[in-house]
């Protein structure tokens, strides 16, 4: 692509692209998100490509796009303009898709999505409840564009916000627009973005730095990955606009090593933007110059914290520091540094293009816009969902998520990652926004939403998060390093049936200490999973401590498996699946579990079709 020197040339190029698009062309968009690729999406795309080439009469173009969000049903194939969605597509289906659907305009029934609730088959993507109930202003473009093509992005009005800013807005105007829109940081804290920008702009010291935080470390959250993989230019455009507003000429992206595709696609985007003249000297003839450096993480959760991340960019250990001086004043190499999360940056071009008034109409009083959540765990429709702030948990879990699989009962939803908490059924009507989640003892975090059913033990969940944090604590401050370890020891004891009266009170007391005394936000919020489970699921703690029972049957030390001889028909399924050889029995005779050999993995319980394996 040749360099674009000014705004007119950008518009001309866009018009040219639109002119070149053949309206009769059929687009087959194959999801290339991490989930679909793992299900074999790339093979599906290759097979479709081959079939399209074979059928010479077919005017179709294949696009391997970023994540569509509906990971549960991958690999996904969407045929446009009709908007037909095919789920769980295999490479073998490619020939039929081309000959039947593209050529003969016929729907292939077996590939059509079947709603888990209504059992109906739904042909069009837009009619499927999972999509219909969302508002996909950030994430929606993912399904339409090839993330490795800058022209695709320009074709959907990409870089027009940047042009608008550079052409006729002052930095202060940009900041005030973002302020009016009410944008708050999507990385976890929900800090007002415009305020951060303003402070950084006004902080003494040159140069100033802007940073994309793509060290998405919360387990169960992968929206940043999917935005970066699927629409990297939108994040970059936001960053360039932010840099202009703040007065920065050097940007960074700090990206997790575990996300190789996001890294690759973002690097491609950077190269393309440099060639096109959106990065470098004198961008679009405005006199503004800016470029971006890529830094990779090394697999440390704590590096998602701003001061730790900045230390890591300097090539040091990713340890946070006390923030009596904020990073917006003294960050990378002690210079003013403004860090925002991937999703926050992606919101910026939208605010500029559509205006703060339009944006501020979406959401609640204190939380504007939409939020992308990763809806995962014990849920029918696993995937990424984008909803306006303020919708209820129930709407997300049941209307979009399709409820809990296998007719199990909903127990809790965990939000906010290791810094967040577990919300019980009684809070399903809670409107999801920054402030309400915090009031309820959880937090927005980066947007992980892990659904738990009756088979999930809440004490075990608390133990899981502390175990995670024990490994991920950087070790710099004592409250976090030692406090988490001690709290984990108590929780381990409880899950092993050795809990004592007073344990819960001690956990609460230690939580208070850590919250007050830890150095960084990650340490300070680390007791949240414990506090919230104690608050809402105290009875489960009591069952473990007083009755030595795990009501959900998860804590190994507290459960035993046995086979009910009345119900067992001796089919041998459990015996074949038992990996420790603990099940014995002759064919068609009731089987028995040897408790000495049983490793309590629970497989027999799951595979038995006659409910004859008992867990107690």
């Amino acid at each position, binding site marked *: 692509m040749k360099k674009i020197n000014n705004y007119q040339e950008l518009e001309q190029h866009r018009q040219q692209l639109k002119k070149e698009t053949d309206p009769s062309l059929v687009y087959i968009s194959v999801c290339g998100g991490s989930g679909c690729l793992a299900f074999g999406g790339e093979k599906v795309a290759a097979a479709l490509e081959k079939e399209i080439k074979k059928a010479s009469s077919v005017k179709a173009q294949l696009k391997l796009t970023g994540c569509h969000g509906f990971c549960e049903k991958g690999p996904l194939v969407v045929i446009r303009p009709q908007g037909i969605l095919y789920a769980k597509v295999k490479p073998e289906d490619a020939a039929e898709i081309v000959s039947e659907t593209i050529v003969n305009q016929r729907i292939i029934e077996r590939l059509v999505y079947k709603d888990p609730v209504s059992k109906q088959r739904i042909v069009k993507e837009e009619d499927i409840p999972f999509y219909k109930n969302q508002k996909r202003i950030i994430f929606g473009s993912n399904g339409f564009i090839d993330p490795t093509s800058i022209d695709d992005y320009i074709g959907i009005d990409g870089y027009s916000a940047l042009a608008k800013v550079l052409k006729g807005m002052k930095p202060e105007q940009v900041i005030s627009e973002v302020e009016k829109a009410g944008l708050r940081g999507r990385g976890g804290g929900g800090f007002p973005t415009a305020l951060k920008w303003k402070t950084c702009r006004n902080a003494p010291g040159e140069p100033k730095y802007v940073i994309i935080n793509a060290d998405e470390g919360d387990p*169960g959250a992968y929206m940043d990955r999917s935005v970066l993989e699927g629409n990297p230019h939108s994040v970059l455009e936001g960053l360039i606009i932010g840099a202009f507003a703040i007065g920065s000429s050097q940007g960074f992206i700090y990206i997790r090593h575990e996300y190789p595709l996001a890294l690759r696609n973002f690097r491609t985007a950077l190269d393309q933007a440099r060639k096109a003249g959106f990065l470098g000297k004198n961008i679009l003839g405005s006199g503004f110059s800016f470029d971006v450096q890529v830094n990779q993480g090394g697999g440390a959760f704590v590096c998602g914290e701003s001061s730790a991340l900045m230390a890591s960019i300097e090539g040091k250990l990713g340890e946070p520091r006390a923030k009596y001086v904020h990073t917006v004043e003294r960050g990378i190499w002690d210079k003013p540094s403004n860090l925002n999360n991937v999703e926050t940056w992606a919101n910026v071009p939208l605010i500029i293009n559509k205006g703060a008034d339009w944006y501020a109409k979406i959401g609640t009083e204190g939380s504007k816009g939409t939020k992308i959540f*990763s809806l995962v765990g014990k849920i029918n429709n696993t995937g990424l969902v984008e909803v306006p702030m303020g919708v209820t948990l129930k709407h997300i879990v049941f209307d979009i998520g399709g409820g809990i699989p296998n007719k199990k009962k909903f127990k809790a939803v965990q939000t906010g990652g290791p810094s967040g908490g577990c919300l019980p059924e009684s809070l399903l009507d809670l409107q999801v926004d920054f402030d309400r989640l915090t009031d309820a003892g959880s937090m927005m975090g980066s947007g992980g939403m892990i659904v738990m059913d009756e088979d999930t033990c809440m004490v075990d969940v608390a133990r899981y998060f502390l175990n995670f944090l024990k490994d*991920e604590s950087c070790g710099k401050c004592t409250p976090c390093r030692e406090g988490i370890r001690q709290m984990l020891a108590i929780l381990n004891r409880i899950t092993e049936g050795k809990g004592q009266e007073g344990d819960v009170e001690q956990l609460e007391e230690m939580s208070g200490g850590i919250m007050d005394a830890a150095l960084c936000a990650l340490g300070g919020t680390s007791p949240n999973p414990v506090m919230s489970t104690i608050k809402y699921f105290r009875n489960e703690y009591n069952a473990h401590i007083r009755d030595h029972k795990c009501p959900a049957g998860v804590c190994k030390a507290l459960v035993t498996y046995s086979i009910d001889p009345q119900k067992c028909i001796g089919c041998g399924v459990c015996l074949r699946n038992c990996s420790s050889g603990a099940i014995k029995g002759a064919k068609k005779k009731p089987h028995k579990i040897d408790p000495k050999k049983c490793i309590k993995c629970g497989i027999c319980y799951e595979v038995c079709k006659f409910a004859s394996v008992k867990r107690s």
Partner: protein
Amino acid sequence: MKKAEVDKIINSYGADRSQVIAILNEVQDEERYLPEETLKHISERLKLPLAQLYSISTFYRAFSLVPKGKHQCTVCMGTACHVRGSERVLSELERVLKVKSGETTKDREFSLDTVNCVGACALGPLVIVDGEYHGGASPNQVASILGKDKSTAKAKK
């Protein structure tokens, strides 16, 4: 790794000290650990004290100072995988391979590690063997996940 190859990596980052993590990542990807000699060389080239490199190599999870096995087996321990039973899959892997997470089998065939989340939550519980994703893993599939060759896995029991 030959010095020249390490130099190539270092030069591609302009011998920039702040890119030390990226440089170590590339060495780790290539060698599957960080050999002492290589660390010494990087230390000289970047003019970073070896002690500082050691502290970086032990701080970040991605790095290992001991050689890894021929095959890398990684269990995702993200929350979504956890609630779907990843811990049971991990303990079965530990039992079958006779190593703890973070260790390598004596014959250097398998290294077993955990990862906090790879963002493929729809597939949980997830086990990754040499880059290949095995979704919906359960303890009784462990043998087949490990071996294209079932008999090897069984023989290890």
